[in-house]
Structure formats: structure tokens, C-alpha cells
């Protein structure tokens, strides 16, 4: 029905009339970080989203984590602003504690039945005051804290929960035994409603994104782990809660058995992963190696003398910056990485210490006692995934993940339903985020015709003019759980802040970033007549946008706000000096308050957005991204430096999963050429880029001549190159190939390959070394792929793979096992004892390559006469990346790959606005991963391109004409061309074109008179901070 209506002329009216009637564009199922990203991207791209989550709040597994690797960012701190954003977004309709019951219809016209569980609390009435929680007599193990601590039967899931309302658990006395109802009596807003029953809602959407996420493997499946039996055997997720300030012991790592600090802790890797045993998962969970390293680093932060031992097999540091993270962990004092798994022998009945028995490889078998054992549990699909899949009519793999198209990891087996995040298979946060943006882009492709029809703009109250008022500052000091409160004496800081000039209101809060606190802040602004706000909490780099928005909602200009960073710059860096940290916190607040007095209201600009986009790089990533955006009706200019499209993939023949790359590529290229909105420029170089987000102009020299392209956004997909090895007679002996060469030779049916008796493969050629301190990620899969292919052609062939760590992460572990099973021999080597290749002649006159290496377990030398040697050469950044980086002002990371805006949550964005990233230019990756990221970049670009305007910061420069002497010091400082000198009758005067100004303030520091000032960072504002910082009390 909807489809028919959509095809008719009356869509706008039709949609409008249905707006309140459960009509939406996309439904997202699963409220973890992946679902959140998809919701925000779609909302920003002009679609109305129904966002369904089965638990009482969105947040998913990420909300349970303490920190995230490899930056050790506070997990909740980076995630929770997104909760608030979801909550406030006018295009996102949030339904928590709800589950999908059935899905009817087809792509473009789905009818979904959603069952809302009874929370026994009226969401519209509950204020989140938690009085009911205080009075509730039932304590039960808190699911948020992994059942380690206890909570009440009525409670809020966690402090930053969205929606921030209570729910009643099945442990409720009234629900169980029909008595109590104390909460009902104490609730002032009569929000408790025991009469509530599950409710079924019918919702109509055009597309669905599934992001059910993962659960941690439950070690109870295997009794040898003794989880649940030995008190001090915990899972990594338990440990995550123990580390966390909002955890069961407020961030103190304690043993549940005796509440003592464990000092000697062991981690056992691969718990439940890479196991063929019943109840376990045979795949690699992809994240455990690195999260364990993170936990070790954090443990050492908590307790510098802690001894940490990691029992592991391969260390799979295959991701961006993981190798350095591993090295950092390894170098810490008191850390042992032991390459042996271990048997949990026993629990001491008195001390409850745990004894492990393990092989030391060379030093005998050892039994050792630990205070605590952390099981590095893997990721598993949710327990109810089977039912889930049935409801949506999609297929699952034998591992219980979503079956996706071999050419598109985001497509499920049912058209119009897409998979996002770890539903595709084990993956970490950034991959979940980028796949969410990708799934959003795919929804956009099929629903492009109705974009914007149901969306609503964000509405704010009119702004109150307070510029004539005396400053009335409100100061809010955050405990940040225990992150600040444990070090800084917050009450003392609050008392001090009350004494500061112009400060009229001071308050403390456990989490000022929670919705509840933000609502209180807005209320204070209105009721107490505040006109300036200082939030003393964490870094403005993540939380400033949230609070600015809060000010807007309260009706005052968002620039009347300053953040005093008393966490990253105080409690965390002075965690051993509580007094000094408290003093400094006061200083920081004083500086902020002083600055705040001088703040001015600023106007933000709406810059027009040019609807065309350019894609730099015509490899798989570039083409996918280009097509996805073109399918959403945007003109795309695809720029390729070479004479043909395809990039590095032209040299590939098949993927591990069996995709015919040649065919895939030619189909893709054909699609690109045929698409009326994609313009391809071959042999192209970019000579100049000017402009800014929404309004770039890029000059291109290509086979089409010189062109100046106007575009609103750019996707950079410049790819990567393959390192040319310098070792092992490479390029001196034709029997020594790279894996790419080998693949080509296999497919061109070279006899010397097919007839080879012994093929040796050597991993990590040019990776994981001093020169390139990173893992090239794809080499193992590539070697395993070629080995399997060779074994298929000639099962009698001997194949030896020399490796340092087998990094067949995720589902790729299956192929590693298959190769083992087919007789491929894997031999570990140490970087200090690499395999040696010598050229020699056999008795029968044949020349051979003699490979000599050490068998790591037996300690014996092994010798192989190899007929062919294949080197897994490193993937290196494309030479072009540097040039493009300079043109678009993009950051390059330490390894020469592009640096994304935020490693975890903005994996396809650049810090430079309007430019997006995908493919191997970001980091080495497999084709399927590149495809996912390419859709992700398209999805992110669409959040910009779908809008007619983009908001630019109000923090730009302005000239006080009276003070300008026309000296011209400022203009040359600005290469944006924002500052111009104009002839007036009084001589020359500088002026600023605000839309061009990027707010760096270089002109400001050149101006002799102070005539040109960067708003929000004026001399006055900075001077007040300096003086306050030097203990001068300035108003």
C-alpha cells in the first residue's frame, strides 16, 4: 500500500498525514554503537528512523566497557554524547525494551510488529528521580555490572541510560508474590503502573538495519574454566566492570572472594574462541588479544606494582596501531606474555587463589598461583539469534552470524534488510561504526525517492538576549563517577567556586553528561537566570557540542559556555596527589569562570552545500563509494591516477571466501561507466583544492583536459601499494615471488607452480619491523588462500608457511584450520631467527632454494628444498596519499596511512570537515572490509550532501575598523583568503569574509593594535584566563 502511495503524486501529504501514525523510513534493530551510528547518520541524511532496542536503554556492549583500545578512551564518555544526540534527534523515534515480532512486506514497504515489554513505569511520567529505587526492598544481581554488585528490582539500567527512566525487573516482589508496591506510594509523579501490559505496535518502514550485536562467550559452557565455581576466575567483561569507575567497586579492582586487590593476575586468551569443542566457537573473536592488552595497561594504571601474565597463542595485533599497543603493553614492568595455553588446576580452598599449570617452552612445566584469572572471552552471537533471524526471514551462518552477500558484507539474504556491526561476524567498535554508516547508505540507495519527506528540523526555543546583563555564571562540577571524584575533592571545589566573582550558582553531579543532569542544567538556566555556564568535567574535545546544545535548548546562546577540563588535565594526570589536584581543579574553574565573563554570543553560519562530490581513487573502495552516492542522486566525479579503474584489486583473482575478483571488478567498472551520474577522470592528477566543507573547488588535469570541479564533499580512497621486498633474492631469482605474483601465476596456470613439489611461504616481509611498525593485516588470509588453492590443484604438494603469528582473525580462522587439515604445515619463526634461503644445486643438476629455519617447538633445524618461495610482502601507504593529504589538509598517521578523525567513533571521517576516508588508504584491509568502509564513507558523505546547508562555527575573526591601521600584517597570515585589505577613504582597512574564516586566529596574533580579533578566543578572553591562571582573581 505504501509503495503505491509513494509512487503517486501525493507523497508529501500522504507522509505528513502519517507522520504520527507509525510511518518511518528505516527501522534499526539493536541499540548498540552500530545501531546508534546508523540512526544518527540516517537521521542526519533526512530519514525518519524507528530505533528498536530490547534492553531498557540503548548503549549496547560498548556501554559496559571501561576503556577502548588502542587509545584507551573512556568508553562511556565517548559513547554517551551519542545517546543524548539520539534522544534529542527529531528524526529518531526510540523504542526501548521492545522486540520485533514479525516483518511482512518487502523492500520499500515493510510492516513490522514491535512488542513493547511492560516496564511497569510510564516513560512519559518518570522523571528519573530514583526515589523509588531508594525505597525498593528487593536487591538482585545487577546485570549492568555483570551480576557482581547488586541493584534494586526497580532501577535505572545505568546512569547515562537513554531513556533515563526506571524499569521494574522480574525480581519485583509484587510481580512475583503480589505484595509490596512501595514504589507506587513514593513516586511523586504516579509513574509506576503495574497495570501495564506488553503492547504491540505496527510500524511501516521502507528498509531495516539489523544490529543485534554480540554477547560475551559464557565460559560456563566448559567446566574446565571453572567460571562460576571459582570466585576469582572472572571473564574479561567482568573485569571491564571491575576496572570501571561505575563498576561494582567504583573502579577499584577487587576480588569478589575477599574484597582484596589482586596483584598477580593472569589472562587466558581464546576462551571459547578458536575451539572445536562443543559449546565453544571455532572462529577467532578478533578483539580479545587487544582488549587484554588494554586491560593490562589499565591494571598497571590502577596498581603500578601489579604483575600481569598473559597466556596466549598467536597475538593478533592486526588492526591499526595495534602492533604499537602490543609493544607498549609488553614493555611495561611486571608483564609476561607466555605463548602457551594453560590448564586451570585448582582453587586454593582458603586463599581462593587459582593455580595454573603451563608449559614454559624450554623451562619445563610450571605450576603457578595467581590472585585472579581473567578469561579473555570471545564474542558470540546473541543467545536468541535463531529466533531473531526467523522473525526477519534471514539466514544465518553455521556460527550464528548473518549470511551476507559475498560481494557486499552489509546485505542480508532478504532484500531491503541490511546487517550492521558484529552481526556480520566478530569485529571491533570502529568496524561496527563504519558498517553502520554503510548500511545507512544502502538504505539511502533504495529510499532516495522519499528522503526528507518525513524528516523534521530540530526546533529550539527563541534565544534570550543576555548581552546587556551582568554575567551570572553557573558552575557545574562533575564527579565523572569516580574518575574525578576519587581524586579531586569535589565538595571543596564547589564551595570554592561559590566565592568566585559573578558565580551565582554551583552544583555538583555524578555524571553531568547524563540526560538527567543536562535537563537540570537547562532548568537552572531558565529558573536561576543564568547567562553563562561553566562545566567542570572532561575534555571539550568530546563533550562541548553536547553542552552547547543544552544551552540552546535552554534558550541562550551556545557560546556562553566554557568547559573546565578537570579530568584529563587534572584528576587523571595528578591521580597520586589529591590535594594538589583539588587545588588545580579550583584554578582551572577560576580560569574558566574568568573567561566566561568575557564571552559573547556568536552567530553560526549556514553555508550552502554543493551537491556534487568527488571521489579520489578508482579502486574498489572508490568505485563502491561513488556508485552508492550516485545511486542517491548525487553527481560524482571519480578521479583515478592511472589509465584504468580497479586499483590493487586488478592483481587479485579470488577472495578467501571464493569471490571471483576479476568478474566482480569488471561488473563494477561497467556499472561505474554506465551510471549517468558518475564522471570518470583517468590519468588524472589534482593540482589544487580550494574552498571548504560544502564548497570545494578542485582543479584536475586528466584525459579530459583541465577541469575545475565544484563539489560539497570528497571521499578519499587512494588505496595502497605493495612493498617490493629487498630480501630473499627477490627480483634476482624468478622462483621468488610475492603472494600477489603467486596468485596471478596460479590463475594463469603456470606449470612451474603446478608442478612444484615444495612451496615455501614466508610471512611478515617488510611488516612488523622497525621500518614499518605495523601488521599488514591481509597477508595471512592471502597466504592461506593461495595455499588452499594450490592444495586443491595438487594435494600432494608440500606447502610450508613460515609465520610469526597466524593472524587469521574472525571467521577467517576457519580457513586456517582447513589449510592445516589439508596438510599445509605452519611453522612459527622468531624475528631474531628468520628463515634463511640459500641457492644451491642438487646432485641431479637442478637448482634449488634451500630454506633453513628453526622448528620452534622441537628446537631443531629444518631444511626444505623449495621450488617456489612466496613472500607475504607488506602493504604500504600509497605514494599518492601524501599529495592528496596536503591538498585536502588531511592528517597522516605515523605509518603513513590516513589518520581518521577519531579511531573509534569516526573511522571514516577526517578531522577536516567534508572529507571522508575509505579503503586501504586508511589501513591494509580485505576486499570485503574495503567494501564495507566504502559504503560507510558514502553514508557519512550523505549526511552532509543530503542537506542544503551546513553549519559553520561562529568562532571567526572580525575587524574593529576603528582600531585597524591598514598595516596589512593580517592578510598574508591567512591563506584561506578570508582577510582582505580594502581601500577606504581613510586608507587601507582589513575586513573578514566570515564564511571563509576557519577560526585559527593567526591574523589576530599578527595584528599590532588588536583590531582583528578571533571571536571566542579574543585577547580579552585569553588574557583573563592567563591572569586567573596566575592566581589573579579577575572578573
Amino acid at each position, binding site marked *: 500500500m505504501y509503495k503505491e502511495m509513494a509512487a503517486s503524486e501525493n507523497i508529501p501529504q500522504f507522509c505528513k498525514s502519517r507522520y504520527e501514525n507509525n510511518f518511518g523510513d528505516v527501522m534499526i534493530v539493536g541499540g548498540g554503537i552500530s545501531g546508534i551510528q546508523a540512526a544518527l547518520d540516517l537521521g542526519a541524511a533526512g530519514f525518519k528512523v524507528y530505533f528498536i532496542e530490547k534492553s531498557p536503554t540503548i548503549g549496547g556492549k560498548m556501554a559496559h566497557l571501561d576503556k577502548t583500545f588502542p587509545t584507551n578512551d573512556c568508553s562511556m564518555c565517548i559513547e554517551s554524547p551519542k545517546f543524548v544526540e539520539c534522544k534529542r534527534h527529531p528524526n529518531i523515534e526510540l523504542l526501548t525494551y521492545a522486540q520485533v515480532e514479525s516483518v511482512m512486506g518487502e523492500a520499500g514497504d515493510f510492516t513490522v510488529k514491535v512488542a513493547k515489554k511492560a516496564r511497569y513505569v510510564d516513560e512519559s511520567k518518570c522523571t528519573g528521580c530514583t526515589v523509588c529505587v531508594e525505597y525498593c526492598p528487593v536487591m538482585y544481581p545487577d546485570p549492568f555490572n555483570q551480576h557482581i554488585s547488586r541493584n534494586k528490582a526497580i532501577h535505572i539500567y545505568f546512569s547515562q541510560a537513554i531513556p533515563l527512566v526506571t524499569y521494574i525487573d522480574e525480581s519485583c516482589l509484587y510481580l512475583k508474590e503480589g505484595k509490596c508496591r512501595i514504589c507506587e506510594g513514593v513516586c511523586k509523579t504516579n509513574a509506576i503502573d503495574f497495570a501495564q501490559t506488553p503492547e504491540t505496535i505496527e510500524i511501516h518502514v521502507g528498509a531495516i538495519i539489523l544490529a543485534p550485536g554480540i554477547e560475551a562467550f559464557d565460559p560456563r559452557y566448559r567446566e574446565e574454566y571453572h567460571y562460576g565455581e571459582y570466585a576469582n576466575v572472572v571473564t574479561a567483561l567482568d573485569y571491564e566492570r571491575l576496572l570501571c569507575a561505575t563498576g561494582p567497586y567504583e573502579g577499584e579492582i577487587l576480588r569478589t572472594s575477599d574484597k582484596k586487590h589482586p596483584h598477580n593476575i593472569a589472562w587466558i586468551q581464546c576462551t571459547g574462541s578458536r*575451539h572445536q569443542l562443543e559449546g565453544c566457537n571455532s572462529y577467532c573473536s578478533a578483539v580479545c588479544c587487544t582488549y587484554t592488552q588494554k586491560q593490562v595497561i589499565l591494571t598497571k594504571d590502577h596498581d603500578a606494582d601489579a604483575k600481569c601474565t598473559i597466556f596466549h597463542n598467536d597475538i593478533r595485533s592486526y588492526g591499526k596501531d595495534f602492533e604499537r599497543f602490543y609493544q607498549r603493553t609488553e614493555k611495561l614492568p611486571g608483564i609476561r606474555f607466555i605463548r602457551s595455553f594453560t590448564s586451570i588446576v585448582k582453587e586454593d580452598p582458603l586463599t581462593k587463589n587459582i593455580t595454573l599449570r*603451563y608449559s614454559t617452552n624450554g623451562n619445563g612445566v610450571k605450576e603457578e598461583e595467581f590472585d585472579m584469572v581473567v578469561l579473555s572471552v570471545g564474542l558470540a552471537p546473541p543467545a536468541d539469534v535463531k529466533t531473531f533471524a526467523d522473525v526477519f526471514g534471514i539466514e544465518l551462518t553455521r556460527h550464528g552470524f548473518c549470511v551476507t552477500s559475498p560481494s557486499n558484507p552489509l546485505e542480508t539474504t532478504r532484500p531491503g534488510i541490511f546487517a550492521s556491526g558484529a552481526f556480520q561476524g566478530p569485529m571491533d567498535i570502529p568496524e561496527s561504526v563504519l558498517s553502520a554508516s554503510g548500511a545507512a547508505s544502502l538504505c539511502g540507495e533504495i529510499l532516495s525517492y522519499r528522503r526528507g519527506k518525513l524528516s523534521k528540523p530540530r526546533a529550539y526555543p527563541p534565544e534570550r538576549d543576555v548581552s546587556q546583563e551582568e554575567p551570572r555564571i553557573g558552575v557545574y562540577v562533575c564527579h565523572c563517577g569516580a574518575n574525578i571524584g576519587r581524586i579531586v575533592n569535589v565538595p571543596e571545589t564547589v564551595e570554592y567556586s561559590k566565592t568566585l566573582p559573578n558565580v551565582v550558582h554551583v552544583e555538583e553531579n555524578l555524571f553531568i553528561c547524563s540526560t538527567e543532569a543536562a535537563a537540570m542544567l537547562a532548568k537552572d538556566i531558565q529558573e536561576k537566570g543564568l547567562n553563562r555556564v561553566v562545566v567542570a568535567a572532561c575534555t571539550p574535545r568530546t563533550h562541548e557540542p553536547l553542552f552547547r546544545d543544552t544551552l540552546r535548548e535552554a534558550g541562550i546562546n551556545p557560546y556562553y559556555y566554557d568547559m573546565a577540563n578537570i579530568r584529563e588535565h587534572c584528576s587523571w594526570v595528578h591521580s597520586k596527589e589529591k590535594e594538589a589536584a583539588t587545588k588545580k581543579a579550583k584554578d582551572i574553574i577560576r580560569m574558566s569562570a574568568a573567561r566566561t565573563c568575557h564571552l559573547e554570543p556568536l552567530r553560526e553560519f549556514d553555508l550552502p552545500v554543493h551537491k556534487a562530490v568527488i571521489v579520489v581513487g578508482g579502486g574498489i573502495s572508490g568505485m563502491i563509494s561513488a556508485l552508492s552516492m550516485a545511486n542517491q542522486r548525487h553527481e560524482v566525479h571519480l578521479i583515478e591516477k592511472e589509465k584504468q579503474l580497479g586499483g590493487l584489486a586488478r592483481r587479485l583473482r579470488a577472495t578467501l571466501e571464493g569471490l571471483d575478483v576479476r568478474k566482480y571488478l569488471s561488473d563494477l567498472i561497467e556499472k561505474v561507466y554506465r551510471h549517468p551520474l558518475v564522471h570518470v577522470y583517468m590519468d588524472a592528477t589534482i593540482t589544487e583544492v580550494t574552498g571548504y566543507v560544502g564548497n570545494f573547488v578542485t582543479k584536475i588535469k586528466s584525459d579530459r583536459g583541465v577541469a575545475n570541479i565544484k563539489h560539497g564533499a570528497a571521499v578519499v580512497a587512494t588505496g595502497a601499494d605493495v612493498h617490493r621486498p629487498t630480501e630473499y633474492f627477490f627480483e634476482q631469482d624468478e622462483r621468488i615471488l610475492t603472494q600477489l605474483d603467486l596468485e596471478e601465476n596460479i590463475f594463469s596456470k603456470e606449470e612451474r607452480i603446478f608442478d612444484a613439489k*615444495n612451496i615455501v611461504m614466508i610471512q611478515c616481509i617488510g611488516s612488523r619491523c622497525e621500518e614499518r611498525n605495523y601488521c599488514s593485516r591481509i597477508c595471512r588470509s592471502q597466504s592461506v588462500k593461495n595455499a588452499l588453492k594450490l592444495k586443491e590443484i595438487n594435494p600432494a604438494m*608440500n606447502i610450508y608457511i613460515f609465520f610469526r603469528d597466524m593472524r587469521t582473525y574472525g571467521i577467517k580462522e576457519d580457513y586456517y584450520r582447513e589449510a592445516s587439515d589439508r596438510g599445509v604445515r605452519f611453522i612459527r619463526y622468531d624475528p631474531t631467527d628468520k628463515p634463511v634461503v640459500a641457492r644451491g644445486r642438487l646432485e641431479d643438476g637442478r637448482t634449488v632454494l634451500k630454506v633453513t629455519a628453526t622448528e620452534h617447538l*622441537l628446537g631443531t633445524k629444518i631444511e626444505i628444498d623449495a621450488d617456489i618461495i612466496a613472500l607475504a610482502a607488506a602493504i604500504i601507504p600509497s605514494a599518492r596519499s601524501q599529495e592528496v593529504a596536503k591538498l585536502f589538509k588531511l592528517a597522516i598517521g605515523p605509518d603513513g596511512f590516513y589518520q581518521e578523525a577519531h579511531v573509534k567513533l569516526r573511522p571514516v571521517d577526517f578531522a577536516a570537515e567534508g572529507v571522508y576516508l575509505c579503503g586501504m588508504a586508511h589501513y591494509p584491509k580485505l576486499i570485503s572490509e574495503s567494501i564495507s568502509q566504502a559504503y560507510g564513507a558514502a553514508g557519512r558523505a550523505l549526511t552532509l550532501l543530503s542537506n542544503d546547508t551546513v553549519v559553520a562555527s561562529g568562532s571567526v575573526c572580525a575587524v574593529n575598523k576603528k582600531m585597524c591601521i591598514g598595516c596589512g600584517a593580517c592578510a598574508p597570515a591567512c591563506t584561506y583568503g578570508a582577510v582582505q585589505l580594502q581601500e577606504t577613504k581613510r586608507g587601507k582597512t582589513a575586513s573578514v569574509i566570515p564564511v571563509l574564516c576557519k577560526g585559527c586566529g593567526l591574523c589576530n596574533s599578527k595584528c599590532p593594535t588588536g583590531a582583528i580579533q578571533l571571536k571566542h578566543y579574543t585577547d580579552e578572553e585569553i588574557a583573563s584566563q592567563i591572569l586567573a591562571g596566575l592566581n589573579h582573581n579577575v572578573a
Partner: protein
Amino acid sequence: MTSPIELNDLYCEFKNQILETVPAANLDMCLTCGTCIGGCPASEQLNMDPRKLIRMVLLGMDEEVKKSEWAWVCTMCARCYWECPMKIDIPKLVYGIRAGWPREERPKGILGSCDNHIRAGNAMGVPTEDFVWTVEDVAKEIRETDHRFKDLMVTVDRKGAKIALNQNSREPVTEPDELGPLWKILNAVGADWTYPSVMWAGENYCLFLADDEGWRYILEEFVYHIDNHLGCELVVNTECGHSFFAIYEGLRKFKIPHKFEFTTIVSLYARWIREGKLKVNTNWNQDLKIKFTVQDPCNLVRKTLREEAAEDLRFVVRSLVGAENLIDMVPHGTNNYCCGGGGGALQAGFSEQRRTYGRIKYDQIMKTEAKYVVVPCHNCHGQLEDICKYYGGDYHVVHIWTIMCLSMDMLGENERTYLGPDLSDIGL
């Protein structure tokens, strides 16, 4: 292993051979993770461990593998297999290595016992008539000395008996007084049972010898006799680990058709206690508070009945000595360490290695501070006694039947060989 291994003609003949017979052994899958070593008390003996062994197999070092004496030190206790993430059947591999030895070169002690069994129906090689005579003689003595058992019936080959019970040959041959307690128990519950005369012995050294033919022959003869001559509906294995495994696994492995059900006496003890048929009590130990621990035979627990057997075993012992007086070793149950006496180790001749192997078990027992180890297995029994003496321990090793009779006040004076002075006259 100092000369380089040449891998030019990698052909893992031995591995393929094993995989032919045991396709699920997963030998190629080793991740070299080392889990096996962590649970293996035989690790490092003779400079070998399960991981190394597999590695050698996979690198085609067949000669070294086949020669490895370690195969006789490993007891095939399956703790490695139990935890191995890749489910690599190392015990089967070891069995294969043993089988690869020329029969005559295999350890004499095991070989002799195996041959005896094939020839005479028991490992000690005593003629069946002697067995029948001993049984009757001992039974007669009991009937005469203790009027409570004046009707004690012990039969051999009684057709139509419900239960057929096998009998480890150690008792009739070397310590006939140990026969009585079990009979008294069976008598107390009124069991309808008999000994078979064919392959009557509750042992099977061909299993240790890795002699499939012998193992199969013994079992087939036994099964044929029971099904065709006696018609018992239930075959009960005596308090012995490996013979339980030999029948349990043999029936499956050789696909031997049989009409009877098969169980262990330990399960029956538990059932009878639960049903109230066995009136055991713990009164005798109420004041004494003598501490007991329990050894889980690998063949009875980890390798076959798992937690079910471990739980029955504990239930029985708790009912005999009082729950508070049972101090479990850590670890125990399916995770228990092998004592080192299994797999024919007591007869294989590697005494030094066997005792080093047993050290873990010895330490486990001593840690419990128990005075008695209750063990329903002859090989465990032998090994625990030996290491106790060797390492200077002060515990006693007893079968369940001894303590069970003691608790029911039925233990004769001559049936107390394995009790310490503290229990030597209780209930007399």
C-alpha cells in the same frame, strides 16, 4: 633430534595411518597452543610432551615417533584430549604408537598379562578351576565364621542370574581375603549375581598393549559367554577403571552386538544406597572424624561416565564416612589428574617416570590431609600405594567395599589389610 629435519618429501605415513582408523583424531589441526601440556603429568618425561609428539607426527618424523618410549609413560588418561581446543585425540595417537611397536618388543609386563588373559581368561594366568576353587573356599570360610553370612551365595556360571560380575584377578590370586567384602555387600542387597567362568577377569592388558585383536578376542569371548550361556541382563564391572573402559569402549569400538546392559559397581552402590537397600551409615566415624579423599579413575570418570560417575562416587563415600569427612582433592572429577598407574604403567617398566608422574597426585593427596584415599580402581590403588611409600606419605589406600563393609559392621578381621591402625578394630 640434533640433525636437521629434512622436509623435502613430507609424507606423514604414520599420521595417515592413525587417521585411517580414527578419522576424528584431528591430528592436522594442532595450533601448538600448549593446553595439552598444562594438564599432562607425563609432560617432559623422556624430554617429550604431547605437543612435541604431535609436532613430530606432523613433520613426518615417523621413525622417532614410533620409537618413542614416551608412549609407554603416557597413561592415555585423556586429560589433554579433554581440554584440547582442536579436539585432537592424543590418547588415540599414543595408542597407535604403542600398536606400532613390534609386539614382542612391547613391555614384557604388559605383554605377558595380555597373553595370559587370552590364554587363561585372566592376566595372572591362573586356570579357571583354581579361580572357582578359591572363590568357593573363601565363601565357605565366610559362611562358617560369620553366622550373618551363613547363606552367602557365591556362584560361577549360574545360568539365569540377573547380574554377571567380573572379578579382577588380583584378589583371588594374591589376596583372597579382599574378595569377601564385595560379596557381603551383594548379599546385603540380595543381588542375584554370578561370576562368569569365561574371561572372568576384570582387567584387560591388551588395551594397554594396544593389541586390538587381543582386546577384541577377550571381549567377544566374554560377551558370547554371557549372552549365550548365562543370559544375564546386566554386566557389572567391579571396582576397576581400565576394565570398565575396556568393555565400555570395546563394545563400541569393535561394534560387538550384545544383549546385556553394562555398568559399574559404583553406580549400583549409589543406586542401592539411594533406594535404601544398602543400610550404610556414618555413625562409626562420627567421633573419629577420620578424613577421607576420593580418587577419580580416569577410565571411569573423564573417559567414560564423566560427572555422573564422579558424583555417584562422592555420594557413596559421603554416605559412608560423612560429608564433612570427605576432603576432595583439587582438582577432581573430570579435571582430575591421572595418578600415573593407568595405561599399564605399573607393568611397563618405566618406574622412575611413573613415580615422577605420580608426584602431582601424591601432592594432591597430601594437601587434603586425608588419612584414606578411597579408590574404585586396582591400578590407581597400586600406584597410590607405591607413591605413598616412595615419597614417604602416611595415607592408606582402600577400595570402597572395605569402607562400606566397615560402615555396615560387616568387615571381617582378615579383610583389613589396607586399613591403618586407627580402623583396624572398629566394629569387631
